[in-house]
């Protein structure tokens, strides 16, 4: 018969020292106090980013920031108004109106391309759905401020103006 391997897990809490509670409590208080004194002596020990003055340095190229619409090599809009992103969007925050493209590069382009950032959940489904690599979320913008509701609706022009974040690779 094969011997069954049994791993014995030690149970704590039976010794007098542990039942007294207080030694363990003092041990914990020692730990917190050492942190307190360390930070009180020199506030540079605090593990914080002083945010508005210091910007976060850990935003990687996979970070889903505010959307942008990409350009073709000739500088025109890459989007062909196929509505794939608007269909994939779970928050239904993308509004596209298509028009015919007459400059011979392609057949269709958006007349209007609005993203309502107040509805957007930044899931990135639109980026996944796009067959033309026309919409991306690699602008690196993590903070978006507006004073009116209308400020949060990104129009086609504003989306085209957003560029890839400086330190990201294409």
């Amino acid at each position, binding site marked *: 018969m094969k011997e069954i391997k049994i791993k014995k897990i030690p149970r704590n809490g039976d010794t007098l020292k542990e039942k007294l*509670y*207080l030694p363990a*409590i003092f041990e*914990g*208080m020692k*730990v*917190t*106090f050492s*942190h*307190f004194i360390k*930070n*009180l002596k*020199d*506030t540079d*020990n*605090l*593990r*914080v980013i*002083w945010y508005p*003055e*210091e910007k976060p340095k850990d935003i990687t190229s996979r970070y889903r920031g505010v959307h942008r619409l990409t350009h073709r090599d000739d500088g025109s809009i890459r989007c062909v108004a196929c509505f794939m992103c608007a269909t994939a969007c779970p928050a239904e925050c993308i509004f596209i109106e298509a028009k015919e493209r007459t400059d011979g590069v392609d057949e269709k382009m958006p007349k209007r391309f609005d993203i309502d950032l107040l509805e957007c959940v930044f899931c990135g489904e639109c980026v996944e759905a796009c067959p033309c690599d026309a919409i991306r979320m690699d602008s690196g913008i993590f903070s978006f401020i507006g004073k009116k509701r209308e400020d949060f609706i990104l129009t086609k022009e504003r989306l085209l103006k957003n560029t890839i974040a400086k330190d990201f690779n294409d």
Partner: protein
Amino acid sequence: MSGVLLFVVIVNILVVIILSLGGVPVLVWLERRVAGFIQDRSGPNRCHIGGIRLGGLIQSFADMLKLVFKEDLLPAHVKNRFYFSLAPTIVLFCSILTFSIIPFADNLVIDGKSYSLQALPMSLGIIWFLAIAGLSVYGIILAGWSSDNKYSLLGGLRASASTISYEPIMALSVVTMIVLYGSVSLNTMVQEQSKLIFGFIPAWGILLQPIAAITFIVAAFAETNRTPFDLAEGESEIVGGFHTEYGAMKFGLFFVGEYVAMSASSGVIVALFFGGYNIPWLSTETIKLNISVISYVIIFLLPLFSYFFIKWMYKNNRWKRKNDIRNKESKVLTKGIVGFNIVLIISLLYFNLLLKTPNVISVLTALLQFGSFVIKLFMMNLVYIWVRWTLPRFRYDQLQTLCWKYLLPLSIANIFVTAIAVVWISA
């Protein structure tokens, strides 16, 4: 009623109000900054008035202002509106009443007459504290019940259960101290602690009665509903507990009441176990005899401490962005500290050289003892805060087990041992 008595009474009441209500913003600030530092983050430090941040203290004033000016909403489903509004006032009222029993300096002797430095100079002493501290839980129960809400009711029930359980522990540890000191008056108890054991150890309650000290401190934590016994709030389980339905200044009263209660029980712990207003090794008579030596020591030490504090401030009180108004704070505060030093040194020298009458000596002694009491009070409050950010919350059955199975037998045994020892020594 003589003019001096009236003046002393007014000063007593003012001191209690300033220490209890005025201490709340300081305690809130301490709580947040200490919590931040313990968790390696900074805590609130941005709020400022003309660049003066005082290490973030301005934030608590801003929060209080916000609570005062917020719209006072009353939930539509609350049926007993009177009790709903009454509850927070009971909590605050009882907290301030418990605070007012604590002596903050020894009896002031002016022109041969003795004046007690307590806002409520009554003979009940510690009994008054036990009675009123127990009463303040009615506010919490009333809030929980009148909120017409499951979570609030649970919070109120938990608060009442933990208070009922821990009240006996508190009372029994106090009985030990009464047996030891032979009095219920807090002032007498504190005076007893100015003596020395074996001629060199201060006879503080914690050294004479370590077990009573531990049981009393644990019970005081449970009584004030602070972590690790804050089941009444239990924000991870029952939303906000008894104050779920409260907002604006009604919540503010609970908030202030909680901190005043914490401060009051710290004061009682200090008075019972840490020598109260006594400066270690210096009883009131010793201070009065050696007042010039003590004032010269202060004249020597104060600039030294100020120097190290200013050095620390210049190292740590900086703002990352240049040309920010907050960068000027250190210079302004340095001027303030230097000015304070000069004024204090000049007045102490003036007193030493020209104004050494018995009345002034007793006032100065009272001021020194008051300073000692305030330092001890804030140290104890710091312990409360420190424990809060170290320990997780007890489970409800653990709370009751700790109380009835461990602390109750321990404190009863302690009473017997103390009583036998006291009788044996005095016989």
